[in-house]
C-alpha cells in the first residue's frame, strides 16, 4: 500500500517495471523522463553495468499532481532483467504498490517472457503479495519489430487474467504514457478500496 505522509500531505506510490532482459523496461523510464515536464520529475538514477545493462535498478521519481490536497508522487523502478540477477529483483519488489510487466514481443523471446512472469509471481509471493490481487498492467513492447508475435497469442499466454494491456514501442514512446497512467490509476483506485 502507498506510503501516506499526513504531515507533508503526500501519497508515495512505488511502481515496478518487470520483464526479461532487454525487453524495454529502462527504455520506458527513459522515455517518461525525457517527456515529462521538468517541474514534475526528479533525477533519474540508473545503476548499470559497464555495458549499460541494468545492474541493480533504475529509479525515476514523478510528482504528477494532487488528489484531494495530497501530492501524488510515483516512484518508478525497473529491475535487472537478466536471469542471474534474481536476488536483486526480489529486493526491488519490496514495498511495491503496482507492477508493469513489459513483455518482449519478439518470437525468440517468448520463453523468456514466460520465465520472467513466473519469476515475478514467485518473488512477489516471497514478499506476501499476490499478482492477481494487486495493481497490474501488461505491456507488449517492440510491436514494431518484424518477428513480433501475434497479439492474441501473447495476450492468451501472458495475460490470461485479462488485466489492462497495451501494445507499445518504447523506443518511440508509443503507449508508454498510457501504460503508466493505467497502473497509476489502478494504484490510486486500490488505495480508495482499502
Amino acid at each position, binding site marked *: *500500500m502507498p*506510503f*501516506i*505522509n*499526513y*504531515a*507533508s500531505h503526500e501519497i*508515495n506510490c*512505488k511502481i515496478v517495471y518487470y520483464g526479461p532482459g532487454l525487453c524495454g523496461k529502462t527504455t520506458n523510464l527513459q522515455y517518461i523522463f525525457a*517527456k*515529462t*515536464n521538468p*517541474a*514534475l520529475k*526528479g*533525477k533519474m*538514477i540508473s*545503476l548499470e553495468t559497464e555495458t549499460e545493462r541494468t545492474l*541493480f*535498478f533504475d*529509479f525515476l*521519481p514523478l510528482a*504528477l*499532481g*494532487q*488528489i*484531494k490536497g*495530497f501530492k*501524488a508522487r510515483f*516512484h518508478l523502478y525497473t529491475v535487472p532483467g537478466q536471469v542471474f540477477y534474481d*536476488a*536483486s529483483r*526480489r*529486493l*526491488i519488489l*519490496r*514495498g511495491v504498490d503496482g507492477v508493469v510487466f513489459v513483455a518482449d514481443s519478439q518470437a525468440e523471446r517468448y520463453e523468456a517472457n514466460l520465465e520472467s512472469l513466473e519469476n515475478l509471481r514467485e518473488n512477489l509471493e516471497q*514478499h*506476501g*503479495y499476490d499478482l492477481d490481487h494487486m495493481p497490474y498492467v501488461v505491456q507488449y513492447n517492440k510491436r514494431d519489430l518484424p518477428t513480433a508475435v501475434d497479439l492474441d497469442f501473447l495476450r492468451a499466454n501472458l495475460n490470461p487474467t485479462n488485466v489492462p494491456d497495451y501494445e507499445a514501442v518504447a523506443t518511440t514512446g508509443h503507449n508508454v*504514457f498510457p501504460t*503508466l*497512467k493505467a497502473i*497509476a*490509476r489502478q494504484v*490510486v*483506485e486500490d*488505495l*480508495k478500496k*482499502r
Partner: protein
Amino acid sequence: MKNQLVLHKEEYEKLSAICNSLQRGTYAKAVFLIDKDGQLLASSGETQDLDVTSLASLTAGNIAATGGLAELLGEKEFVIQSNEGEHENVNISIVPPRAILLIIFDRRSNLGLVRLRVRSASQEMTKVLEEALQKPEDQGKAAFSDFTDDDIDLIFGENV
C-alpha cells in the same frame, strides 16, 4: 504483508525533533530517517542542496543489497555501515522495526561521536515508529474513500 506505515503530524514532529537533536549532538552535516521502502520520513541539517528523493531510494537499495548479502552469510542483517569519503563520511544504521538512519558528517564530527549518539536516538525513534505502526489503519483509509475518477484524472493533467 507487513503493516502499512502512515505518518501523522504527531509522529512526524517527534521524529523530526529526534533528528534535530541528533544532528546538533553529533555536529553532523545532515541526518535522514528513511523507511526501508525508500521513503524519507524525517530529516535535519544541511539538506537543501541534496537530492533527498534519490538519496532515500539509493540508501534503501544499499540496505536491501547488504541485507541480501548478510542473509547469504548467515547473518540476520548488518546493522551498521560506514563509508569514508574525501571530504564527507556517511554512517548508515538500521532502526527497528523498519527504518534506516543516515548521517552525513565531515571533519566537524567523528565516527565515535556519531555512533555513540545514534544508539540512544535509534531507541527513541523505534518507540515512535512502533506507535505509528500500531495506529489503526482506517485512520489512513478514510481520507481517500471519496476519490472520484475525475480526481484521479487530475493527477495527470496536461503536463504528462
